[in-house]
């Protein structure tokens, strides 16, 4: 039985991330700070980005140039992205000053950092597919950096079709998967204890 891959996976999952850990109804007493809100806010902004993006995708890339509703949905998308980055950067700095990678949480930090880079790539392709003056300018300027590294040979920023597909399919999927892994890792390890909280070790109940 336990030789089965399925059973192994289930046992490992059950051990590392039981539902009580995934959806806990309590948290350590030190989880009281406004900084903890920023991870969740980043997640919320990402949800708004995806939602508004799906509406934009249904109407096609030129919709918002000609429709007021389209422009509004585009604005939702735009501002959600701006908020997403603000929240994420505050989150990042917060986790840095908390040294939140302590206690086997390196991979939580690393997936977060990869999410940051992936977000920049996703946003960048978004700027390229605006089909307006800004995207003309950005694609002309940005091609040089990618071409200089040989990346332009297969990632062509002046190819609207390619950028549009990457922006609405591959990159958000990638970012989504990284984000899910990131959050599951937080749940698995639990929230990192405060720096200098070790007196607990000496038997002093905190």
């Amino acid at each position, binding site marked *: 039985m336990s030789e089965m891959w399925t059973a192994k996976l289930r046992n490992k999952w059950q051990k590392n991330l039981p539902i009580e850990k995934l*959806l806990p*109804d*309590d*948290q*350590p*007493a*030190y989880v*009281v700070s406004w900084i903890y*809100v920023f991870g*969740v806010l980043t*997640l*919320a902004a990402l*949800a*708004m980005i995806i939602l508004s993006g799906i509406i934009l995708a249904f109407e096609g890339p030129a919709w918002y*140039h000609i429709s007021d509703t389209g*422009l*509004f949905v585009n*604005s*939702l*998308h*735009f*501002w*959600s992205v701006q908020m997403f*980055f603000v929240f994420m*950067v505050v989150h990042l700095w*917060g986790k840095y000053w*908390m*040294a939140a*990678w302590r*206690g086997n949480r390196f991979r939580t930090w690393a997936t977060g*950092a990869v999410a940051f*880079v992936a977000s*920049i790539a996703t*946003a960048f392709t978004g700027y390229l597919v605006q089909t*307006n*003056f*800004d995207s*003309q*300018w950005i694609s*002309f*300027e940005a091609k040089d*950096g990618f*071409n*200089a*590294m*040989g990346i*332009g*040979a*297969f990632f062509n920023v*002046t190819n*609207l079709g*390619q950028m549009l597909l990457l922006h609405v399919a591959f990159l958000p999927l990638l970012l989504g998967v990284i984000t899910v892994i990131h959050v599951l890792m937080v749940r698995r390890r*639990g929230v990192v204890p405060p720096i*200098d*909280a*070790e*007196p607990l070790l*000496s038997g002093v*109940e*905190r």
Partner: protein
Amino acid sequence: MTFSKEAKHAFDAAPWAGKTKRYDIVKEGSIAVALVAIAAIVLSLVMGSPDEKPLTFKGWAVSNADNFYVTAVQEIAGTSGSATYGGPYNKASDGLNVGPFWLQKWAGVTHPIDTVNEFVIAPLSTQVMSTEIASALATWKAASDSQKQTWAATYDDAITKADGKLADVAAGAYGPVPALAQGLTDMAKGGALDAALLSQGGFFQTDNTKQILFFGDGSYLDDAGTTANLQGGTWGMMNETGRYPGQAWLWLYSFWYQIPPFNNEESKPIGANADAYIMVLMGLLSLGLILIPVIPGIKSLPMRIPIHRGIWRQYYDANGIKRRKK
């Protein structure tokens, strides 16, 4: 009380054994989504979002016909930015390098661009045209390659000598080149060039590479970028059209373009290859961000500078935990 590194690690890694409190993460998440949604709606209603119309070849040829004409001649003579670019468009140059790494060249020509034929001859050929231009086109098509090159280069040189002032260009043996450039200028003025460049005689087309490259060869796009404050040398990478925030998260990427040697094209090897060096640098810095938890010095800064005292103040105060010197 002091604790060994191992003891601290074990403590940080162990499941929390101290006090807990009720915490409703699903409720917290729902409230966060609601707040962000409200903020996005308010910002969208009040501020809207940037959407400046794209520029067109028509706009270029109408507002600055001479510059368009001169650029067309450069495309024919093979002296434009696109024609002399190198990979991935052609082999006219080796492109940039980082030390012994000529990645641009090595990646090859994956998006071949033939400026004479694709930017000028093919679009012109789609048009119903005056007999003068039709015959110029026929003469061009019938001529040998070396003859074409001689005509175009002679004319391009003459224009350069006249500082781009077309009225001052001396008469010479330019063959059909002036008529072709004029034909293309007229075509652009009429508004037919944008679509012809994109479609290249086909039906479906989703790749704007040719349009964008030709467009950037003249001064029209560049001037518009300057006016909109988008030039890379002045932090333009982070800017947005109109009064909107741009890609502020690119500040570090943009930063390098503001300082020597990156901002000096004359400085070798780095300034002359700034696009490549900055890419490499940002790649390394991104890797550095991922690896912060294992980088000596940087990883222990948070213990030395007690910002965490502020973050966890309530907990520290409630439990009388003093800061321990590091």
